[in-house]
């Protein structure tokens, strides 16, 4: 029996109240602070537009986020496929291995990468010990270090949505396609890939949007050219107490991110993006 309509709408209330208090209200305060600190003016935004520093940091942030999304996709898609098609025991073990790091603090994991990637870290000592390199490779305090650290943190957020969609795909479909004359590549590209696309899109969005706001990893593993927006906002708010400029930075990041999300959603078809294809 279907519940009466008003009850199902009532179910939304707790989520809406939560979002209202902890999302809409603070975002509203940010908008307000960016325009009214100290008195109404567009000065904070003019300052952002007038200095090359802020533009460069925005470009950095998007470059790093796109790179990290692509790398996690390349690593995560095959992993999710393996996970979805392996036997129960194997996939259970793999799932634990993927989820376990999520229980460890990002800060601790980032420090662990400093130990591994440093000049005298495990990786460089190992490579030199094996005679593969003569001098330490620059793995830390540059874009490579940031990418490695962020990919490690964000990989589960790519694998899990793809895995959940792949779990619902009947593998027999691949055999059916081959039965109908498709070779293995065609069967994958024309049957499996389109069916898994919704998980792929969700994974990419979650990773990309999360990457945009990253702070700890680029701050610790990055070099002088790898500053991201969150680091700039932190300086404005916690060191300079300039809430106006910090808020303006946050608002611009929010607006650009929302615009990208809407554009992607429109391009790829809104339904396919969020709803699992049966």
């Amino acid at each position, binding site marked *: 029996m279907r519940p009466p309509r008003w009850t199902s709408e009532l179910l939304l209330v707790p989520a809406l109240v939560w979002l209202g208090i902890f999302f809409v209200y603070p975002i509203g305060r940010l908008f307000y602070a960016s325009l009214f600190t100290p008195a109404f003016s567009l000065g904070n935004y003019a300052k952002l537009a007038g*200095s*090359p*520093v802020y533009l*460069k*940091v925005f470009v*950095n942030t998007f470059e790093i986020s796109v790179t990290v999304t692509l790398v996690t996709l390349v690593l995560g898609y095959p992993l999710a496929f393996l996970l979805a098609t392996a036997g129960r025991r194997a996939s259970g073990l793999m799932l634990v291995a993927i989820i376990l790091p999520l229980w460890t603090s990002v800060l601790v994991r980032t420090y662990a990468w400093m130990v591994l990637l440093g000049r005298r870290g495990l990786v460089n000592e190992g490579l030199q010990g094996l005679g593969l390199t003569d001098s330490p490779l620059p793995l830390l305090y540059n874009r490579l270090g940031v990418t490695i650290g962020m990919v490690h943190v964000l990989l589960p957020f790519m694998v899990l949505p793809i895995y959940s969609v792949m779990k619902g795909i009947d593998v027999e479909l691949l055999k059916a396609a081959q039965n109908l004359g498709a070779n293995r590549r065609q069967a994958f590209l024309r049957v499996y890939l389109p069916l898994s696309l919704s998980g792929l899109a969700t994974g990419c969005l979650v990773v990309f949007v999360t990457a945009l706001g990253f702070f700890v990893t680029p701050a610790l593993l990055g070099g*002088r*050219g790898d*500053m991201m927006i969150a680091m*700039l906002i932190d*300086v404005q708010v916690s*060191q*300079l107490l*300039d809430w106006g400029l910090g808020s303006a930075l946050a608002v611009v990041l929010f607006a650009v991110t929302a615009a990208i999300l809407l554009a992607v959603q429109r391009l790829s078809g809104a339904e396919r993006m969020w709803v699992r294809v049966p």
Partner: protein
Amino acid sequence: MELATSWNGRIYAIQKQGARAGLEWNQGKLQWDSWVIPRGSKNKDGAMKFIAWSTQPKPQAAIVNEIPYGPVNQRAFEFIGAQAARDMPTAPDNAKRQVMVDPVWWGEHRNVLVERWNAWLLK
């Protein structure tokens, strides 16, 4: 690495571990921490007594034996060993080669300087 800025205590710490690092006081920045009593504090008298005590020569010298940062009270040098005294940032010979950090000036100019610093970093 050829050159870096650091708190002097950290250089002493890595020297003890055998690192080949020297220290140059010339144009170093001399700065200090402050005790602050918020207006309307309940226990203001106790706090004032604590500050008066902790800035006396002997307690200042005792801190130096634990961590190698300079005493703010010059009379503390009477209770510090000769070698340790020469290593202090506030030892007269070292202090005169450094610049005093002016908190008021930094308070007024820090935002401009941070932006200039970031622009240089990102070049």
